[in-house]
């Protein structure tokens, strides 16, 4: 008798968080593959997972490795392409290849009267294009809700270094998308939490402070 819950419950509880992380790290095109690889691999190893393990941290750790695999496979596929694609690819995004201050793709600023409207897709894109370590720290801490000690265990290095990488990532996003700091985002935050969305850790504001 293991007392371990059926794997279906693991998928129900953590499927959407892992998908969010995969989309943040790889972009929408490759997120499906990374998610599938993550959960298939987790299912295989599940009987051997210690009963007291932190399942979410375990899944994010697997997703982290699978995202690296997917990125490498995509990079191999991309080698024969002579010209750089118009849109930022998942590969350059995953490797943090887009130069800072690059022009935002998509509809940022399409609504001149928006008064700081957040273009959510653009913000998602911007996160995907952050340098790898910053992106990973932001995704694992703010999207998956892992404490910096767990983020550090995944990325290597210290919790302090993970905290700094996340803060640098947030600061960089804020420079690209100053509108994301305006009133509507605050309202969205409240709405998201009210709707039961996993909130960023309670100490987020302090830790995000540069």
């Amino acid at each position, binding site marked *: 008798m293991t007392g371990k819950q059926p794997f279906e419950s693991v998928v129900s509880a953590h499927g959407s968080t892992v*998908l969010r992380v995969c989309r943040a790290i790889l972009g929408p095109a490759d997120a499906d593959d990374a998610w599938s690889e993550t959960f298939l691999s987790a299912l295989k190893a599940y*009987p051997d997972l210690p009963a007291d393990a932190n399942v979410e941290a375990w899944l994010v750790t697997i997703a982290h490795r699978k995202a690296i695999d997917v990125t490498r496979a995509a990079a191999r596929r991309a080698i024969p392409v002579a010209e750089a694609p118009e849109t930022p690819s998942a590969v350059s995004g995953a490797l943090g290849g887009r130069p800072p201050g690059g022009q935002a793709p998509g509809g940022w600023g399409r609504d001149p009267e928006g008064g700081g409207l957040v273009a*959510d897709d653009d913000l998602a894109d911007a996160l995907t294009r952050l340098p790898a370590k910053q992106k990973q720290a932001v995704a694992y801490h703010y999207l998956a809700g892992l404490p910096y000690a767990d983020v550090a265990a995944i990325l290597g290095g210290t919790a302090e270094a993970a905290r700094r990488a996340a803060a640098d990532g947030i600061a960089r996003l804020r420079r690209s998308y100053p509108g994301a700091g*305006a009133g509507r*985002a605050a309202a*969205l935050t*409240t709405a998201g939490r009210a709707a039961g969305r996993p909130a960023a850790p309670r100490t987020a504001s302090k830790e995000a402070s540069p």
Partner: protein
Amino acid sequence: MNIDDMPGALAQAFPDHPDQLSRLHTRLAAAAQQDGVLDVAYRVIDSPVGPLLLAATEQGLIRVAFALEGHDAVLQSLADKVSPRILSAPGRLDAAAREIDEYFAGRRHTFGLPLDWRLSAGFRRTVLSHLPEIGYGHTASYTAVAQLAGSPKAVRAVGTACATNPLPVVVPCHRVVRANGSMGGYRGGPEAKRALLTLEEAAA
């Protein structure tokens, strides 16, 4: 600028995608089946006696459970006794769902499904293996079943075997009734037992 806003906006930038998750779940179940790591597949079907949980290993149907038993509790018990590698994966239960549908429509009198008997052992399993000998639309007393199972005095043990039948409906413990003709207990509740006996009487 409120420094808490960017994390909130980020959470908002990655909304849930229920359709995508559902598609990914289907893909996961298929991959798990193909790799031989889907130890237990399950689905829930509607029936005249309420929702029925059907669970199967690669060997065959291992569990049929009434809502009364608590489907979550039954799945947890399967995780403990068989394997925690459990996914909702309707495909493996297609044949079982079809045969049970036909049974409730009165068109099927015997089941031809492969069964995984591992949740039942010893004398209980012996008893259960004899139950299909009680024909559709008929009943037998606990005493008669004890004789069928080769232990005429083990009437009480027959009661226990029926009460713990992991495969109700398919293995017809509902056909075992008290010697005085009253129904006796049932895992799915007395109403379910009566409904099955009434169905079989009408369709026999």
